[in-house]
């Protein structure tokens, strides 16, 4: 068999497809639960995106290496062990180096184990492919997930708190309390608005790419 280069067109496609037309959140509608929960502010959204990307990529590689040795009937339990090991590692790293954010993310770091995207990519891709493509696929899907998280987090923090990454963007003199006319939108902070924002992103994506529209 001919040796494939590391960044062949096929591998690059694995990286770029999940950002757009096979995005895990907007097209496959996976991982929505955490996308609603951690996107009130931009910072936790970014940290969550990085954590999930790391977990998907590394667990994909590990499962891909093990794929020929695991009996088919117990593969799910093995996947769970691998994923939870990584999640615990990520959790410990966050607690050590980003304690505040880790407090904000609270239970949702642990819940990466149940994030459908992680198990989905292992089942659908890593178990049938070599380590390198599995790694690229994992990175791609993690970034695709992260992209949506960052966009939603950006809008929610800007409109809901008037800040970005904790820095004030909308000057405080604009607010009604200080004699201005502006007010933060409380609905954006609530989870339903995250769902509506996600819906709007899906709407925009589908009106640009008609292939995604079901007949």
């Amino acid at each position: 068999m001919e040796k494939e280069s590391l960044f062949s067109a096929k591998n690059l496609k694995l990286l770029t497809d999940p950002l757009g037309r096979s995005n895990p959140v907007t097209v496959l509608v996976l991982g929505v639960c955490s996308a609603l929960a951690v996107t009130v502010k931009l910072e936790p959204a970014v940290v969550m995106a990085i954590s999930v990307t790391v977990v998907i990529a590394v667990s994909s590689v590990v499962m891909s290496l093990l794929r020929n040795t695991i009996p088919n009937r117990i593969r799910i339990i093995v996947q769970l062990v691998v994923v939870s090991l990584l999640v615990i590692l990520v959790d410990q790293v966050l607690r050590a180096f980003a304690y505040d954010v880790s407090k904000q993310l609270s239970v949702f770091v642990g819940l990466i184990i149940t994030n459908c995207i992680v198990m989905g990519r292992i089942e659908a891709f890593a178990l049938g492919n070599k380590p390198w493509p599995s790694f690229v696929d994992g990175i791609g899907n993690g970034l695709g997930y992260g992209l949506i998280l960052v966009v939603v987090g950006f809008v929610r923090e800007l409109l809901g708190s008037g800040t970005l990454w904790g820095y004030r963007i909308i000057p405080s003199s604009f607010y009604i309390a200080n004699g201005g006319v502006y007010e933060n939108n409380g609905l954006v902070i609530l989870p339903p608005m995250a769902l509506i924002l996600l819906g709007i992103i899906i709407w925009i994506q589908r009106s640009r790419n008609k292939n995604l529209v079901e007949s």
Partner: protein
Amino acid sequence: MKATQNFFDKIRPDFEKGGRLHFLHSTFEAFESLLFVPKTVTSSGCHVRDAIDLKRTMTVVIVALMPALLFGTWNVGFQHYLSVGREAGFWSIFLYGLGKVLPMLAVSYIVGLGIEFASAQIRGHEVNEGFLVSGILIPMVMPPDVPLWMLALATAFAVVIGKEVFGGTGMNIFNPALLARAFIFFSYPSHISGDAIWVAGLSGGTGVVDGFSGATPLAKAMVGRLPFSAMEVEKIFWGLIPGSIGETSTAAILLGAALLVFTGVGSARIMLSVVAGGYLAGLLFNAVGANAYMNLPAYQHLIMGGFAFGAVFMATDPVTAAQTKSGKWIYGFLIGVMAVVIRVLNPAYPEGMMLAILLMNAFAPLIDHCVVQANMNRRLKRARQAAQKV
């Protein structure tokens, strides 16, 4: 009339295919069919021909809203002059109210119709007339001092997220006007709840006469300033109380209700069942009687806050209500019950009508489904029995 007709006939070619203003054709159609009957008629099949089309139905609703709107406009001024403790004549009171209400109406119509026209144009649809009523309802369920940009944002949200994404007029799940109110309620709670915002100019706090609080009857009931005196009850019925613009006067709303029921545009079933539900829930709380609010006479629930307005103009929205006859009874009854339950039991929401109607909007299709299924099962059973006898 003839002159208008001629004018429309003259400019029509510009808007037809190939004309220089073709891109505005749905705008043209909207205005033409608002003034006259639509030019195009169905050419095949059997149809019931009736002069009442969607536009005429909507016009009846708007006429029915007029008493409440005019009274509300006057009341905005009346409450304002009461709060500053000055005497004023009828016209200066009314003009003050008009100065508050007209900008709100303008904002609601400009934003809502702007989006409707634009999206009809983009999709190549005709403009639907659903917003004619929503546009007047939205300001009527708002407090007089709500900032206009919030109103614009709420209107845009209601039209785009509440209506257009579902496919436009007739396809929406939730009542757009209530959605606009809910948007402000959850986005900017300090501008639509509390004691200071129901009277125009009160939140500024300048020149308010001593002892004037601006609290609505619902707010008073919430904090247990009960029971209402006979004079207060009378005021609540006639609407001389602070509140959202259109909701205060039960008397004016009853006038509108009479017109809606008489013309058959609004469903009397829904109105009656909402009232029945609210009244029975009130009686139930009377029986429990654990605090002052629970002891409130049940009929007073029906005249306070937005109950009457919601029952007559919001719950009867033909798009979002249940469609079947028995479905309408269940739907309305549950709205009444929920509204009173939310009022009395939930300290976070002094008024439950908006949330009750939105909640039942979501359940209306399910109610209809169950009613239709029950009907089918009953008929099947009857058919089987008949078959066995033979």
